[in-house]
């Protein structure tokens, strides 16, 4: 009997270890200076579900670096309870959320909550979310998004997803996870490199470069169905896909005519590529801004620098001037900021440029930053970097103050891409 019990323990221990390896774990390494104190008591109703949802909300808010949590474990409240504003104010909470979760008639779980401002002593509104009982964390992310938006004035990104590539034991895994690194699912496994994943504007597809046929080819992959098709496979190399704002086309880099140059192809793989820019050097890493202009990296001036092409293949203007290596341009969703990688003293670091003032700020002190990707609200930038010889993902706020690290125990993580808001 004891032996059976022991092997059970062993089995679950191994299972837990396997699961742990597949998950990204997040460590906050810096936080904002002025954090909003909020109280998130346990929800009333179904105890297990309530614990999962409250823990998700708390972790989301804390991880954002914009909130501090006021202890509220002793509170016994639901969304209809009267709030003792003076009490919560004296505990230091500027806001409190109270709610409940119950099983609905159809078997799904219904979470309800209301958010209160303890200073103004008024309700900031509430919402109800119905989810499957295996989707409770999703309900938590929705509640955290609501609280985040009401208290900061900008949309939350806790319900969004991220894509990234894990290299582990000679295999390349293209994975999709929640923005907090949980719930990782593998969309593609390959023995050859996978690079440059990018989300379609509606979040249903990923375009990426796979070397599975022993050369770089651009694929478009529908996540829900797992179906994929080739978007660009011409002679030579096919890489660096970037979605057009309407999701119908991809800017890609082709070497079919000998030189890496930027072309436009239909995302469904139909038709012939249309040349977008011409240089005698390297043109690569195209990225559309919301206004249809195109940022890209080119060495046409003698060193890799960032350029911008006016919408519709118009005039090209150089954007970066400091230093001799500025690459991987990524415009923010509002088009006001550009994230990129700059080399300073042989270190490759994340920088942002205010596109109006052209002011540049280096945000990290690391050595090997790569592949920046803006959160859809522009607040955080996800990058690949290296710590202790291992690839990890790091999220840095666009003002450089908040830093989070995401790592997978069993491998190198690289090529992050932050997905769009859920529709």
């Amino acid at each position, binding site marked *: 009997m004891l032996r059976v019990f022991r092997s059970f323990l062993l089995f679950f221990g191994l299972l837990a270890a396997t699961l742990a390896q597949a998950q990204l774990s997040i460590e906050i390494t810096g936080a904002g200076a002025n954090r909003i104190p909020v109280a998130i008591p346990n929800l009333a109703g179904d105890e297990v579900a309530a614990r999962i949802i409250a823990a998700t909300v708390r972790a989301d808010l804390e991880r954002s670096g914009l909130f501090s949590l006021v202890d509220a474990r002793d509170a016994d409240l639901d969304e209809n309870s009267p709030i003792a504003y003076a009490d919560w104010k004296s505990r230091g909470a500027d806001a409190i959320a109270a709610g409940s979760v119950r099983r609905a008639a159809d078997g799904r779980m219904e979470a309800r909550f209301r958010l209160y401002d303890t200073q103004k002593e008024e309700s900031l509104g509430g919402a109800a979310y119905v989810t499957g009982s295996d989707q409770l964390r999703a309900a938590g992310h929705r509640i955290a998004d609501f609280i985040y938006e009401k208290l900061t004035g900008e949309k939350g990104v806790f319900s969004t997803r991220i894509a990234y590539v894990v290299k582990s034991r000679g295999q390349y895994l293209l994975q999709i996870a929640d923005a907090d690194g949980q719930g990782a699912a593998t969309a593609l496994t390959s023995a050859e490199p996978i*690079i440059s994943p990018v989300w379609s504007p509606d979040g249903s597809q990923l375009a990426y470069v796979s070397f599975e046929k*022993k050369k770089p080819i651009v694929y478009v992959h529908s996540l829900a169905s797992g179906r994929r098709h080739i978007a660009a496979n011409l002679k030579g190399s096919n890489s660096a896909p970037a979605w057009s704002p309407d999701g119908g086309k991809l800017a890609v*880099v082709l*070497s079919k005519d000998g030189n*890496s140059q930027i072309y436009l192809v239909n995302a469904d793989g139909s038709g012939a590529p249309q040349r977008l820019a011409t240089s005698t050097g390297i043109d690569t890493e195209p990225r559309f801004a919301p206004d249809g202009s195109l940022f890209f*990296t080119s060495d046409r001036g003698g060193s890799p620098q960032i350029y911008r092409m006016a919408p519709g293949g118009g005039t090209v203007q150089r954007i970066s001037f400091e230093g*001799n290596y500025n690459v*991987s341009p990524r415009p923010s969703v509002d088009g006001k900021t550009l994230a990129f990688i700059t080399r300073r003293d042989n270190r490759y670091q994340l920088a942002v440029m205010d596109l109006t003032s052209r002011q540049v700020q280096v945000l990290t002190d690391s050595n090997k930053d790569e*592949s920046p990707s803006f959160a859809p609200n522009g607040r955080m930038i996800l990058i690949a970097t290296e710590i202790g010889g291992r690839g990890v993902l790091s999220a840095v706020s666009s003002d450089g103050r908040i830093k989070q690290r995401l790592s997978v125990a069993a491998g190198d993580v690289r090529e992050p891409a932050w997905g769009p808001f859920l529709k």
Partner: protein
Amino acid sequence: MNKLLLPALLSLFVLACSTTPLPEDGTGAPVETRGGSTAVTPVAAGDLDASGLPRALTDPASTLSQRSIYFDLDRYEIKGEYQSLVAAHAKFLVDNRGFKVLIQGNTDERGSREYNLALGQKRADAVKRSLLLLGAREDQLESVSLGKEKPRNTGSGEEAWAENRRADILYRGADLRGEF
């Protein structure tokens, strides 16, 4: 006469060995010099070794056994010291029109993956262009880039980086495991 020539030949061979790395699988070594053996295996062009390549390509004493051209950081110009190496391969391709090569460009691990993919392509293309100018035909040459995805030296630091900033000339056949 013979007594003088043999040691001279052997010492030449040893000298060549010390400056030219052997092919990884070791199949290119035509002469066993260990244990004081005095045997000499004659080398003739067109003679195929176990890997199916002419011995001229795999003989460590031959310039043709050197297949790597190294580059400076961010650069894709072929440096002067590699001109004779490229010229030797061009001559072989001119003399042996049936042979084809795949030129693979590589970069060190630092910086953008996509920029490195393009940079590796530029390095491979630079070698291809040189071979074309020296008489090789377009249909004998293919250039591809592995960017920083397949480093030969997986270490980190100046030595590893220098080794990975490289274009390799690979002859179709035993040099290549499978088609690219």
